[in-house]
């Protein structure tokens, strides 16, 4: 059913990824799909990495660790944005098209009032993608 899963990850909040990561790995095993982990960051030094090379490296490590842990094929795809706080949604939608992924799995927060003004990234992605999007709520 699915061949290529895209999973957007925020390396700055890796602790909140557990549930979504499990879901993505289980689905990948079940359907025999690959996972591409996508991270969006800025070119300026940030809390996760101080250079773009370092960011790429960290994302690749995360992908490799998941491959080893679950016996699945994984890749990583780093996207650099001038203003990630605002451009994140557009960059994810673009990356989804570019990668040709047919399923998106991502962690998201519980819906709240703030979404009326600044919608959640997962919600925006679901609204603007023509593939299935699996939003995994935090426990």
């Amino acid at each position, binding site marked *: 059913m699915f061949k290529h899963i895209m999973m957007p990850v925020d390396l700055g909040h890796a602790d909140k990824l*557990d549930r979504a990561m499990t879901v993505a790995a289980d689905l990948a095993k079940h359907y025999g799909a690959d996972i591409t982990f996508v991270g969006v*960051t800025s*070119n300026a030094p940030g809390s996760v990495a101080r250079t773009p090379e*370092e960011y790429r490296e960290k994302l690749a490590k995360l992908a490799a660790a998941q491959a080893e842990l679950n016996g699945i094929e994984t890749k990583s795809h780093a996207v650099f944005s001038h203003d990630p706080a605002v451009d994140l949604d557009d960059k994810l939608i673009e990356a989804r098209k570019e990668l040709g992924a047919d399923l998106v799995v991502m962690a998201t927060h519980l819906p709240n009032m703030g979404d009326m003004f*600044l919608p959640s990234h997962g919600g925006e992605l679901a609204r603007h993608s023509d593939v299935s999007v699996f939003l995994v709520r935090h426990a």
Partner: protein
Amino acid sequence: MADESTNQGIPEPEGHADIIQTDYEIGQDNIETKIGPFGLDIHNPVFAIAGLSVIAFVAYALIAPGHANGLFNGLDPSDTCEAGAFCDLGLRSYLTSTYDWFFLLAANLFVIFCLFLIVSPWGSVRLGGSEATPDYGYPGWFAMLFAAGMGIGLMFFGVLEPTYYFGTPWGDAPLGTVRPFDENGALIPGNVDEARRMALAATSYHWALHPWAIYAVVALALALFSYNKGLPLSIRSAFYPILGDRVWGWWGHIIDTLAVFATLFGLATSLGIGAQQANAGLEYVYGVPNNVTVQVILICAITAVALVSVVRGLDGGVKVLSEINMVIALLLLLFVLFAAGAVTILSEFVTGVGAYFQELIPLSNPFGREDTGYMQGWTAFYWAWWISWSPFVGMFIARVSRGRTVREFITCVLIIPSVVCIFWMAVFGGAAITDVINNPDASAVKANVIDSYSPELSLFAMLESLPLAAITSTIGIVLVIVFFVTSSDSGSLVIDTITAGGKVDAPVPQRIFWCTFEGLVAIALLIGGGLGALQAMVISTGLPFTLILLLICYAILRGLMAEKRG
């Protein structure tokens, strides 16, 4: 199952940038919290100290307006001060008249330093590492350079300054040049050419190499220490070669807080004063009533557009708006050029460039000058002003300049904007002076700049002397307003990044907060009084920042020495 690799040490980059080894992790002092449904990620304590000190100074200006004005602007009501004493002059004029030599000397140094870097072997160092590619193409980049820190000044001073120097009856003519009018206000034809030449040279001096060198120094330092050394995009990072790991402590907090403070007050006071000027323009052109209500509406409108711009982000908002603005400004420039006579104006430009280089050394000489009215009242004032804006504009330029070599960076931030500014001044000033010479009795420019001083009307008075004044004046007002928006949005991004400890991906509600806060400060000061006093205070921060900038030059040299040359 959380990934453990994110907690491991920082791996080396691919050997083409000299990352500074420090144990500091960007964001380690940040507080991540939620207010209602909105997430926050702010630096502790810079966010709080900067915000509270702004509120404290606004309260001071509102509660004790007379005292604040006396302190910063020096209006001594009791008349007990000697002329020239601190209580007579106020902080700002005291600093620009006492330390005039220091401002002039430092600004000269910044120019020489930048020119040296262009020809030095370090010119080939690439910002962002040797493999980096530019983030922005030339048109978007130039548009943002101008829109952030200078556009509004070009609108305000383009007509005013050349005309003022040409005919000033107040004795502050540059280098004591001749006046083209006699005591009865009649033209002295023999003096016209010399006065005109000097007016252009003296104006260009304030808008060309020197201000841009000031911006370039700050911008280069921030870009270098962030993109090549991996330090947070914040003013404190430029001090790493001098202070070492102490920049992450109170030294750094003070530097960053001062930068936020100067930026916020600089933007808020110029927004408030700008609203008054735009209102005066609207009254002059359309007869719109000139009162506080209209001005508050203007501030709200400017802030609202700026809010949309920051929420749409750097590429979708700030850049687009800057480009639109640049196109409108270019159209206005071309219109004035052709309407006022392209041949005359182009020869004015050639004369202007020649005069600029001829007079550059006498004008920038800090010692033994007799034209103190010009040197202290204009030059030192301008230098303090540019320098107090430099953390904001420099940081914004750094944000959009990744991927350029040092040589390319300085050429594009120093040389090209200088030429554009001289051209702008030659066109607007040239058209205005031509009008003054041709119709000395009927010229609205002469009436508003030389005969009486209404600076905010100078641009519209000049446009009146050309055809289609109704249309071009409207474009002029729109441009003034949009330039305020482009300063406000880029300023909010800068303040947000500094108060988030150098993180450029802090949650969006924070930039909304700073943008709104700036508008509120402007409104509070507009209604309660104190715009002038606090603007004088901001310009006074130019003195400590001059010292900071001198240290930054040294830090840049230290930083560049460790880089691989392209």
